[in-house]
Structures are given as C-alpha cells and as structure tokens.
C-alpha cells in the first residue's frame, strides 16, 4: 500500500478492464514521472469524453451528437442493418469498406453466467427500428465466439418471428473463439462478402 493519492490512483486504474494490480502500479508510477503537460492532456481527455460523448439515439454507437455520423449520412443504405456487440466492432467493419448500410450496437452479448440477458441489451430498440419495414436485411456480426453465436441464434429466431426478409451471419473463415476487433480487414471483408443466410 502507498500513501493517499498514489494508492487512490492505483485503485482507480486497477478497476479498468484488463488492468491487473501490477499494471495499475506501473501506470501510476509512469504518470508520476511524466511531464505535467502530458498528464494534463490525459486528464482533459478523460473529462471531455464523459462530457461530450454519448450514445447515438438510433444505433447506440458512440457519438458527439444525438445521432452519430453514420446515422446522419443520407448516402448510407437504409435497407440494411449490421448488428454488432460494441462500438469498436463498428470501427473494425468500417475499415473493411464492405458495408454501406447502418449499424445497431447491442452493448454486449447475451451472457447468462454474467447475468446479462436479452433485456439488458438494445434488442427492443432493434425491433423498433425494424417496425416500419424499410430494413430488408439484418446482418448479425456478433463476435465469432460461443456467446456471440448464442446471441446470433437468439436474434435470428426473433427476427424471423417479426418477418425480416433476410437475416444473415458473417461467413465462417472468421476464427471461432476470437474477438471481431482482432480480425484483419481482408478476413473481415471476405466474411462480409460471403455472409450466409441463417436458415429457419
């Protein structure tokens, strides 16, 4: 244990995802030795992100306005929605330049063991977006691991029940067990092109 402020910082850093006690300590001491201006910029970025960034009211991607850049772009195809788990997946798919439709960010995957069910994700909001019949294809791009697969199973069953014309899933070729964000552009682009129809 360190004194006051140092320990507070280590504790706060240690609560971040993927940061263990040792990393927290290393980052804390790095900051202690860093140029005050650098630390100031970091502190500013942290407060700004909370003050300025929110979630798009339509797709729940991160956004600085009520609607994100993609949802407010009229050139984007309104008939296709790509469903992803997290905002970082939108970034990964945008990099491939394969998709010209819009997104829907669920906010995670269904994970009963962590107490996360469909009602904890933006599933109801997805149904609302589909209600007027404009959307004819929903591409499910949840992570290629089993929680992502189970989430896709849940969604495809539900989307069929509400009568969406085409429900597709990114093609295999994406390594099972991995995170979507780690897929390189070529692989992800190919998975998009070869997306398969989920059978009833």
């Amino acid at each position, binding site marked *: 244990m360190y004194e006051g402020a140092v320990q507070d910082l280590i504790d706060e850093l240690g609560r971040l995802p993927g940061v263990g006690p040792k990393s927290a300590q290393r980052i804390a001491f790095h900051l202690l030795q860093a140029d005050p201006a650098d630390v100031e910029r970091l502190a500013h970025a942290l407060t700004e992100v909370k003050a300025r960034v929110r979630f798009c009211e339509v797709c729940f991607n991160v956004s600085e306005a009520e609607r994100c850049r993609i949802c407010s772009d009229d050139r984007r195809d309104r008939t296709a929605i790509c469903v992803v788990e997290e905002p970082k997946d939108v970034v990964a798919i945008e990099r491939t330049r394969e998709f010209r439709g819009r997104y829907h960010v669920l906010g995670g995957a269904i994970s*009963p063991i962590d107490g996360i069910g469909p009602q904890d994700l933006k599933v109801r909001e997805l149904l609302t977006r589909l209600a007027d019949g404009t959307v004819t294809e929903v591409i499910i791009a949840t992570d290629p691991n*089993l929680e992502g*697969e189970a989430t896709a199973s849940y969604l495809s*069953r539900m989307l069929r029940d509400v009568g969406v014309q085409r429900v597709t899933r990114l093609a295999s070729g994406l390594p*099972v*067990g*991995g995170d979507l964000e*780690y*897929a*390189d552009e070529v692989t992800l682009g190919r998975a998009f092109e070869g997306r398969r129809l989920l059978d009833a």
Partner: protein
Amino acid sequence: MPLYRDEAIVLRTHKLGEADRIVTVLSRRLGKLRMVGKGVRRTKSRFGARLEPGMHIDVQCYEGRNLDTVTQVETLDSWGETISRDYRSWTSAVAVLETCDRLTEEREPALQQYLLLSGALRAMAERDHDAGLVLDAYLLRAMAIGGYAPSFHDCAKCGAPGPHRAFHVAAGGVVCPVCRPPGSAAPAPETLRLLAALLAGDWAPADASDDRHRHEGSGLTAAFLQWHLERGIRSLRMVER
C-alpha cells in the same frame, strides 16, 4: 508435474488482458482447474475455438506458479458449439455449466460429476431429450452426487414409505402427514413422479410428461438447488422453458 494432460470440459471463460482468456475446466482425473489460454482471442490462435464453454477437449498444460498455461488442446466433442446454435438449449447448458462450477472444488477429483456433466452436454447437443428436462435431471443428480439427494417418494424425514403429497424443500423432499412442516407445498403427483424419473435417469416417462408438470418440476428443482447453494445459480433465471 510441470506438464500434465487430461480430458476436460470447459465450464466458463473470462477475458484476461488484451487477448488472453482464463479458462475454468472440469477435468476427468484432476477435478476443476483454472488455466490461461494465451492469445486465444486473436484471430490467428489455433486454440480459441476449443477453449469455449461446453467444449469437450483434450488439453495439455504447463503448471505455473499462479495459473497453469495451456500448451496444447484438441477438440474431442464440440458440444458447446452445437448447442450454441439453439438458444433455448444454450441457456440450459450454461445453467448446467455454472452449477457444475459451483458444486466442484479446484484440484479435487470429481469423476462422477464429470461423467454426469458430459452426459448432460452430449444429450443436449444430440437433442436426445427436451433441453429443459436434461437440465433438471442434471441438477437433481448433481445435487445427489453432492450429498443432497431429494426424496420424491418416501418421507424425507422419517422414511415412511410413499407416495406422499406434501413437499418441503428444507425437509429434503416429500414428507408424510406426521412430519409435514407448516408451509409445505402440494405439487401434482405427476410432477413428483416426473422428478423421481429424472433423478433415476428413467427417460421414457420423463419424455412422455406434459408441460404443466415439467414446469412445476423445474420450479421445485430450482427451489431445491437454491436452498442448498448459498448464492443462487445466476444463469438459471435466464433459462428459456
């Protein structure tokens, strides 16, 4: 034993750092183990798909100071992958895996639990029976192995031969009119027969049972499990019945 190898079933996984995963497995010989799959969330990993919940694997590990590290893994049966394609079965399977995690201790061999778990996952993957029935059969039998066998015929308190109508979770199952504590439930006789069949692994009458009794039976099974485990099984609430 710095290096060991065993047959195992993945119970659950946690993300660790950038691309690693902590994997909890129940192994056949050694009991429950926790190991690190290094880099498995990266796309080039050969291991990722095999270290997922419900997968039946042959795994080799290097024993570390804190956690063991997976050095090799092969799939024996991809039960988890098959089950994940059916949402209802998946929710049942996750409840099975969480219960197994709760009923076993690290590095304590639990062969009976292992065999019961593999049987339940295989049945779900192969759709031998309704997933909800497989789940309840698993829960009842896993509790029985753990030493809390419920009684569905003879009185749980005095052993008076049944059948009896009253059921009391804390008393351990059905109770005779003499032992019957206040607040006992009175489930349908068919429900008690269904639960007895599930506990015994007698599938013909269980498969023929109707939804109403399955539903009541699931409720009693869940109440029984809840009573014996300090904290509830989280994923049980999310099972689609």
